């Protein structure tokens, strides 16, 4: 199905990407081209076929119920986690004011 510029803007807003009118116009053609092409999948008979969820059969492991079991992925790494934040403040991630 063809998508129009209003739909392009709606997708962009869902994706949290600001776009200009010119970009929306350019993207309308590109997205329609790609979506028109993928629509050939509709002709495949998938009756009784399960959608793939795991490409190689594997058992989902649960980690041990221990706090900070892995020093790399556990806690007490505040400074490391904030090290690349654009605006850290007082040990937190800073964001623009959300509440008036």
């Amino acid at each position, binding site marked *: 199905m063809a998508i129009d510029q209003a739909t392009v803007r709606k997708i962009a807003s869902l994706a949290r990407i600001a776009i200009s009118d010119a970009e929306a116009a350019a993207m309308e053609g590109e997205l329609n081209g790609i*979506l028109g092409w*993928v629509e050939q999948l*509709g002709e495949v008979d*998938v009756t009784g076929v399960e959608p793939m969820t795991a490409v190689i059969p594997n058992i989902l492991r649960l980690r041990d119920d221990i706090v900070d079991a892995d020093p790399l992925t556990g806690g007490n790494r505040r400074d490391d986690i904030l090290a*690349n934040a654009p605006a850290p403040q007082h040990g937190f991630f800073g964001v623009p004011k959300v509440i008036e």
Partner: protein
Amino acid sequence: MTELTNLTVAEIRDGHRAGDFSAVEVAEAFNANVAGAKALNAFIVETPEHAIAAAKTADADRAAGTLKPLSGVPIGMKDLFATNGVQTTAASHMLEGFVPRYESTVSQKLWDAGCGMLGKLNLDQFAMGSSNETSYFGNVISPWKRKDGGNAALAPGGSSGGSSSAIAARLCPAATGTDTGGSIRQPAAFVGISGIKPTYGRCSRWGIVAFASSLDQAGPMARDVKDCAIMLENMAGFDPKDATSLNLPVPNWEAALSSDLKGKKVGIPKEYRLEGIDPDIDAMWDAGIAMLKDAGAEVVDISLPHTKYALPAYYIIAPAEASSNLARYDGVRYGLRDLPEKAGLQDMYAATRADGFGPEVKRRIMIGTYVLSAGFYDAYYTQAQKVRTLIARDFEQAFGVCDVILAPTAPSAAFGLGEKTADPLAMYLNDVFAVPASLAGLPAMSVPAALNREGLPLGLQIIGKAFDEQGVLNAGLAIEERAGFNARAEKWW
């Protein structure tokens, strides 16, 4: 003595072990090549000091008798792997200046094995691209030129194009790559080197910047099959930090290498014979069939009936996963922040993502967002996942009658930079032979097999059963020995 930068990984490892040269000499030689090849734009960050430090350790370890499996071997690291203390960008503006405080599992394993790092290799932005023209840090250029009197800059393939260009130009003996829909195999084919994508789950994805998590898989790129086996042994292995990591022992692929294919059956998929394809590609494929027969294999015709649907399914599934994975780049926790005046939080997200992502990344996030949105999820995403099941089933049935599958790696030789950028679909079609194995999670490798009429390398692809990297490597070795491919790009950079 041969130039150190012409040695393979195995030759460097063994020569260092034997005391023929020091690891510092090797690192210095490669550092010099890296420094002298800026025209290729293969590296985003050069780390000569890292390579030298590892080399000094390797030399000390040799003196102390505590050599590690890859002591003395410097490598290139695709800039998709998080490296502790070294900028990791995924070739994006979004992550420019990002310096991880942790190390990816695969890179850590290579350092533990004794490798040094020559630098972080350029790639298509967030690994999205087939030509290395989407990097924020500029195009990577292939060292190869067409023999047509022209001087066109050629694509090194993508997304691991920094890796392929650097290896072909002797800036490193081997490098890491990642393959989501052909990103190791296609660039390897374009520059005349080898590369293997192992079974999905063999290499940990922990610390690799995510593109499409159900497809992304790390693997090595190197000049020959043996080096790929050596590198893969040192990259693979179970990692509890990656839920999709396979809890299986890592085989000794190098030790079991054998090009004797007696008793093996090689499947030739009829659906890969595309109408109107470059005759050089078909001729190379036929030559490859003859080589495998010569190695003792029996050749059988097979059918993979859903092949034509693999690319469209891929271009739903990969963008869908990408739109979800790349939601993390919000200007809050790391990376770029673009805060227009008086902007609220939502405006900051939108401005940051508009500024930080390149056009191809935005295009894929938009496609992914659309196919996952309410009302379209079943028509696009669920349908694609069902087709993916059928594609995997095609392979399963084929492997009932054969051990490995032989096909071309890509439908063309390297194309010129800019030749395909105007049409995203034309670019996507370049991955037509690589994507099916990715969707099915199977091990697959590319080995250089011939030069085309323009003097450019062409690659043959071997696809194997899940977990059978050995079968893939062995068939690759049989081709390598018979093709005798030793062409290399003339130095112009």
